[in-house]
């Protein structure tokens, strides 16, 4: 009843091609952004910023990156964490070695380095597909982490390969409290998410989807496979690289290459699968699920009074069970669930 588009007429092409064609959606997103940018910084506690919201946003960005590659372009990748590592270590080195380097530029350059590595390791995708491609992206994962521990230059000759991210300062303003870091991360994620949303609605995105659905057919109708696949790798790696840099600079502070291990790649892949392949919203939902649910579970299980050796295991079991449950109920992810809910709501209370 409330959620319906009756009476909203599209009279121009511009109107018709909006991101959110329904007015209620636009208000809701505007409200969400207002809450995220104004209400949360006013009311949230430092715990919320530094333990929940910042990692949630950073993982969302990484999941978004992987979703571009896997969800939109159909190329399975197990190297997400490696691209994040490239972004982080590249940004660190730009900050370290170029005097007066602005941090935002360092993030972008870090992302570009990750994009180049992405293109390089995306080359096999021109020949191989599916599980075989997954195995070859696995090589990225091992190679990058190995390379970062092996070559001391990347870590400024630190004996153990550990880097310490520099302080963040933009135009003399220091981002040193959890709330400020949150705002910085939120801004970057919001801008990049908007970019991604527009990209997948444009020619580039459509070419990715064409290749995903059937690359031979896409080639026949005139898409250049090489360019399409490699742009997907580049854009995806760029997003992952920026996420990795934020992970180091705004979240952990001091990182070893091991922080970007295969485990992290898998976690991000799970976020994409659970959130929904080929959906921007799904990246956020999936990250929320994987990051927040264990925390909520551990808080709940903690107050049942069981000894900790038991609660740790219960937590894991419930988490696993919930993943299976969600995948059975809706194999297309939480984003699809949201979509179904919306469709039902449009007809409510008079379904056919």
């Amino acid at each position, binding site marked *: 009843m409330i959620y319906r588009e009756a009476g909203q007429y599209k009279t121009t092409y511009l109107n018709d091609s909006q991101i959110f064609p329904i007015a209620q959606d636009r208000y809701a997103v505007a409200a969400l952004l207002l809450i995220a940018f104004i209400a949360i910084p006013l009311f949230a506690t430092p715990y919320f910023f530094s*333990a929940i919201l910042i990692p949630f946003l950073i993982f969302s960005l990484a999941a978004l990156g992987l979703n571009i590659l896997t969800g939109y372009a159909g190329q399975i990748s197990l190297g997400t964490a490696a691209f994040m590592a490239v972004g982080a270590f590249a940004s660190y080195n730009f900050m370290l070695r170029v005097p007066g380097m602005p941090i935002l530029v360092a993030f972008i350059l870090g992302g570009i380095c990750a994009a180049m590595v992405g293109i390089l390791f995306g080359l096999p995708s021109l020949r191989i597909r599916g599980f075989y491609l997954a195995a070859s992206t696995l090589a990225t994962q091992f190679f990058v982490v190995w390379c970062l521990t092996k070559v001391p230059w990347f870590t400024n000759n630190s004996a153990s390969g550990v880097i*310490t991210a520099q302080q963040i300062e933009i135009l003399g303003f220091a981002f040193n409290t959890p709330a400020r870091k949150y705002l910085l991360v939120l801004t970057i994620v919001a801008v990049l998410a908007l970019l991604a949303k527009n990209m997948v609605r444009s020619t580039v995105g459509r070419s990715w989807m064409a290749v995903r659905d059937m690359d031979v057919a896409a080639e026949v109708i005139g898409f250049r496979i090489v360019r399409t696949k490699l742009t997907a790798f580049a854009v995806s790696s760029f997003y992952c690289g920026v996420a990795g840099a934020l992970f180091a600079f705004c979240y952990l502070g001091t990182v*070893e290459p091991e922080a970007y291990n295969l485990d992290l790649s898998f976690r991000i892949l799970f976020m994409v699968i659970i959130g929904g392949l080929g959906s921007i919203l799904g990246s956020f939902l999936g990250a929320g699920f994987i990051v927040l649910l264990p925390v909520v579970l551990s808080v709940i299980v903690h107050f049942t009074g069981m000894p900790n050796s038991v609660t740790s295991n219960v937590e894991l079991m419930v988490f696993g069970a919930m993943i299976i449950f969600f995948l059975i109920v809706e194999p297309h992810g939480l984003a699809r669930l949201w979509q179904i809910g919306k469709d039902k709501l449009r007809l409510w209370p008079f379904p056919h």
Partner: protein
Amino acid sequence: MKLTLLKALTVSAVAAASAVTSTLATAQEQFVPILSYRVGLYASGGSGFFGGAIDYFNLVNANGGINGVKISWEECETEYNASRGVECYERLKKKNGGASLVEPLGTGIAYGILDRVGVDKVPMTTLGYGRSDAANGQVFPYVFPLITSYWNQAAGMIKYLGDKAGGMDKLKGKKIVHLYHDSAFGKEPFPVLEAYEKSLGFQLIKIPVAHPGTEQNSQWLQIRQANPDYVILWGWGVMNAVAIKTAARNGFPREKMLGVWWAGSEEDVIPAGDAAKGYTTMTFNTPGSYPVIEEIKKKVYAAGKGNLADKDRIGSVYHMRGVTAAMLWVEGIRNAQNKYGKGKVVTGEQIRWGLENLNVDEKRQRELGALNMFPTIKTSCQDHEGSGAVKVQVWDGKAWKAVTPNWVQGDRAMIQKMVAESSAKYAAEKKITPACLPG
């Protein structure tokens, strides 16, 4: 679907509410967050270590607390994962009047909260791992790599091998293989070993093993060809048992193998079976029986409050390490109480002072029922480690036995110089002016 979600939300809201009430009830206790890991790959180490720490807390509480102040704690499962660990730390740091101190027992988590502990004024101990250069308290005021670090351990190893060969100069011309886990952890001792290689004139052969290290035939073939005098095993997890077994298969004497302390627990050698007999490793606890462990058995386990499910693990390497850690924390808190008010709950800032001015000599160790269980410790602003001494233990097929009757000390002056250089570099990168914090 929506109902289940709603239910979950209600339950969590109720849980959160009850969390608030339980906080109020225990405000007068000294609160220690326990960032433990009891699931996942490293659960055996985590459950032993944190079980030991909790057992000692229970013992202190059973004996009336620290000058009457009881210790309270709350566990949070980190799964040895950096972001889970950071979340746990953030969740618990302000709870119950604030965290006294923190010990994550994981390199990744320790790095993740390294910058935060200084801001939050919560001291962090890293017993036997983490940044070696954090021993400089002028640059890392809130980090305490108590007892000994990787660098001192590596120095201790060379000292032990030198003594075994009949003098440090006898190492000249010898071949030493450094078989290491190919990660930050395995590379940490490089600077020390390389410095010794230059000054003592032995040949150092570095052979990496990729994680997880379940297949080491090529590495051991290389070792066989090199025919070294000693092999340093800087490994962890499954890699250790595999290395011992492969050594046996290649006929390399286990007596010539010297493991790092993360390769020196019951969990590392029992899977290797008989092959592990005679295998030696470093340790910072003397294996054996101590009054404090007996007291834990009597007062904690007999009362049904013991933390380990398997009573055979009482006094095992990881358990004893946990007891040692908790003992030093409690000494730090006691120290802080002596300065800032006996019988009062002290803050993290005050405990930092307590840990920086620890003096656990043999007399104090005897009072604690732990004479010679760990090296004597005397910390200062310049030296957050307090000791740097290590011991060598050997596996006789059933239990660990100490090889060196006394504590082994490497070239401390050299290590201190390296610590100073490395921490100065960190300070320059972070724009920190090194200084001691006032008490």
